[in-house]
């Protein structure tokens, strides 16, 4: 029986395993050094916040794997020997495969800051990071102050986590406005204000210079590059993005860029070895996407795709319209299609913000054709299915604005803002006409 080995038990690897099992009775082994069972990485924050216990982040009960005959193996793969089709574990054990899926995900970025490996300095990605945080920041007595470096999604989540235990947080953000490489100015500014409303000490245009240790090799303070200010702290969170976790593949013969290089079929340069999820890097970016997509949803789609290929139906990875979502403290964010932080030359944007400063949308459309290109919505939920259809049908912006109510996904009885948005849009069009 063909043996499919999957390195990594995150959403990509587990999705691949589930779909291979649905279509075949091949032998499947999932390897992980992190946890015994699949859990939702995006939910780790809620464990620290006390919303859930760790077991609640596991989407399948523990009996699921044996019942579906999916083998789970705990271990750290240190080397792949593709000539012998075998994996070598850190303890020297070997495992042979017929087809191999690399789904090892990411690791937090560190940019060579002095002191970045001290005790009390951590990323927020692995389960071990969570355990570390619990160790160094159990309450605001042990952790009187925390500094977070890097203004992305994980950074703001870490800030929310620490604030849930009343730990004062200073948030160093390199950019002049939060996440403004992705969010248009109006949205980014609204989130800046929301962060401050949560009593988080947000420092924009601020870089980390170094992390200072105490006599025990534990973090004591950080120094800000721009001002030289020394901020005392007990914990430093490094959340300046993630990159593919592929160090163990150096010299393996598998082609690497920043991640594992794959073609549109998610195949590496070595036959029978595939890479999916955060660690896969497309030779050529697909459409307007980035070559590496460290996103839950794309990991899942790649898992579904590679499962088809492995089960004999060689399938190209063809993601549909871009979508994503996040939550910034109390404000939910969804995006469908493309809305660029700095509009492309063909792109026009309309921005609406509610007076309570917790809801806004930005819609993007083509200056020439008036085609609807995408929407960012904050504090108002929108229907994925509707925008996916409108993007496929290339609806024009006027149609979308007039039918925005059909896409509303807020709970029943909520106040609706579509007419306010529409009249603001009409006004903006009169001004630009």
């Amino acid at each position, binding site marked *: 029986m063909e043996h499919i080995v999957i390195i990594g038990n995150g*959403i990509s690897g587990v999705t691949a395993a589930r779909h291979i099992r649905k279509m075949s009775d091949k032998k499947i082994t999932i390897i992980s050094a992190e946890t015994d069972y699949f859990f*939702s990485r*995006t*939910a780790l924050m*809620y464990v*620290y*916040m*006390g*919303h*859930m*216990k760790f077991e*609640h*982040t*596991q*989407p399948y*009960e523990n009996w699921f794997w044996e019942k579906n005959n999916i083998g789970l193996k705990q271990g750290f793969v240190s080397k792949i020997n593709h000539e012998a089709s075998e994996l070598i574990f850190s303890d020297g054990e070997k495992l042979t495969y017929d087809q191999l899926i690399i789904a090892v995900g990411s690791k937090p970025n560190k940019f060579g800051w002095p002191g970045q490996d001290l005790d009390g300095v951590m990323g927020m990605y692995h389960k071990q990071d*969570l*355990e570390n945080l*619990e160790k160094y920041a*159990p*309450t*605001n007595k042990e952790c009187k102050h925390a500094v977070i470096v890097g203004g992305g999604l994980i950074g703001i989540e870490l800030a929310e986590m620490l604030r*849930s*235990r*009343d730990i004062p947080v200073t948030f160093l953000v390199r950019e002049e406005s939060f996440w403004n490489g992705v969010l248009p100015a109006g949205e980014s500014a609204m989130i800046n204000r929301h962060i401050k*409303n949560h009593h988080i000490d947000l420092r924009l245009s601020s870089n980390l210079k170094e992390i200072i240790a105490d006599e025990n090799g534990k973090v004591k303070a950080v120094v800000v590059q721009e001002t030289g200010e020394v901020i005392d702290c007990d914990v430093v969170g490094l959340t300046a993005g993630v990159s593919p976790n592929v160090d163990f593949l150096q010299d393996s013969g598998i082609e690497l860029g920043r991640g594992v290089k794959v073609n549109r079929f998610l195949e590496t340069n070595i036959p029978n070895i595939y890479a999916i999820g955060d660690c896969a890097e497309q030779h050529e970016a697909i459409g307007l996407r980035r070559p590496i997509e460290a996103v839950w*949803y794309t990991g*899942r*789609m790649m898992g*579904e*795709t590679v499962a*088809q290929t492995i089960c004999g*139906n060689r*399938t*190209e*990875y*063809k*993601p*549909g*319209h*871009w*979508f994503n*979502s996040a939550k910034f*403290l*109390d404000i*939910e964010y*969804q995006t469908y299609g493309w809305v660029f932080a700095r509009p492309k030359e063909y792109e026009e944007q309309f921005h609406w913000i509610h007076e309570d400063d917790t809801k806004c949308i930005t819609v993007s459309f083509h200056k020439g054709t008036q085609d609807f290109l995408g929407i960012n919505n904050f504090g108002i*939920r*929108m*229907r*994925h*299915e509707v925008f*996916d259809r409108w993007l496929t049908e290339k609806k024009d912006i006027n149609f979308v604005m007039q039918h925005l109510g059909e896409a509303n*996904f*807020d*709970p*029943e*009885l*909520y*106040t609706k803002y579509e007419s306010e948005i529409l009249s603001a849009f009409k006004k903006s069009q009169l001004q630009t006409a």
Partner: protein
Amino acid sequence: MSLASPEPKGLSTKQKIASAIGLIGLFVLVLALFNTTLPNKPVFLSLSLGLITLGTIVFANDAYLTKLAGIKNDGVWFKSISSRGLIGWLTGVGLTTFYVVLYFYAELLGLGTNGEPNTGLVALFDPLSKILSGNPASQWFVYGTLYTIAILAFGYKFLLKYRHNRYQQIRTGSVMFFQLGFAFLIPEFMARLNSDTFSLPYYDLKNIWPLNYYNFEQYRINDFLSAGNIGLALLIFGVASIFIITPILTYKYGKRWYCSWVCGCGGLAETAGDSFRQLSSKKLSAWRIERWLIHTVLVFVVVMTTAVVHSYLGDDSSKYWLTKKSFLISVASFLTLVFAGVMIFKRKELAKDAQYGAIGYFVILAVLFGIHFLSGDGKIFILKAETLRSTYGFAIGAIFSGVVGTGFYPILGNRVWCRFGCPMAAILGFQQRLFSKFRITTNGGQCISCGNCSTYCEMGIDVRSYAQKGENIVRSSCVGCGICAAVCPRGVLKLENDKLDGRINPNEILLGNDVDLMNYVNQK
């Protein structure tokens, strides 16, 4: 490995003071319970209820109004009360003891027996009862008052907790209104209408059979029939509630119109029980137990009620139009009609559950035949209808819905009764699953499998298992409280009433994928 540390954030000073205020209010009740002589009952009663309410309000204000509006579940699994810690267990034991005493040893609460005046705790409530109904209090009046206070005070807390969410606000306003008006005040005022010649049974109008399993017992029917047009109207309303009002509203809105907007059991669960919703088990094994248990109770109540009504009907159709025989025939025909209808039109949606439905149906029919052919002297087989009735009242009415249903809140979650026992929920759930526009829609491919929805589902539905596959959630047990949609950090879930077509979509349709791949994935 345990990540749950001791509570990282204790109570604030204000919250401690508020807790003390509430406990003093409770302490007054304890004093009364032990027959301490309280000089001025109205003052002490007002003081007690006032302090309990005040304590809850001050606590809620400090817990929620000091923060920005949003989801407020920080520390739920660290707090002893809400994570089956010591305080949780003590509360569970305390509540359970209270219910045992309430149902079986009411004299310990001071209920006057054999015409003697009340003493102790029950006597403390006499003044309020006299204002409302003109009668002295009973243990049920004490319970009803505390129950109402709990729903109102904790309802206020819930309103603050979800002040960003209008669905939750309006729904909570609704359960508070129905408890105060329909369950508490109206029945007491109705009692005022009673005289020597005119007597209405105690009737909470929103309490529908079979939750109100005693509604068609002989003494109540006699009361209804002897109370002229009003009585007759009430009786007709009771029957219409089951056969007309309930199906129509459930068709349009799902069972939530009752379970989380109107029902008193639901009202308490959603307010005072809100802190315990995360304790319901989401295991597949719990779901298996749930389905057998709740439907067994349903079969039990149907058989019991049929037997009881049968026992007091006559044989002579010239005396009264409804006879033993015609009653049994109409029950059997109604059940057959429902059973046949489902088997013919909805078999596919029921799938494997159809055989369980069939078992239930044939059990009931067999019993009906048994009643007709084998019973005499008011007996059914060897059991008297009265034995069935009292067994149901004891095992289900008292032990299951009361002692276990509420006493076990801090251990098994706040919907133990609604989930495992309530026959009304079983009927509404059956309608919701097969004949309703209600569903929880999953928003395309946006689910990140985080598990907040499943964790906070009080009915123990593994919401995530549907959401992460892009499936709509159409489950008979869903009471439509809407908390899954509220706690979802990605805006994935929405409670909706919409077309019947495509309501149940058991395919893995995750948007964002290539269309061809979706086709492959859905090939079975």
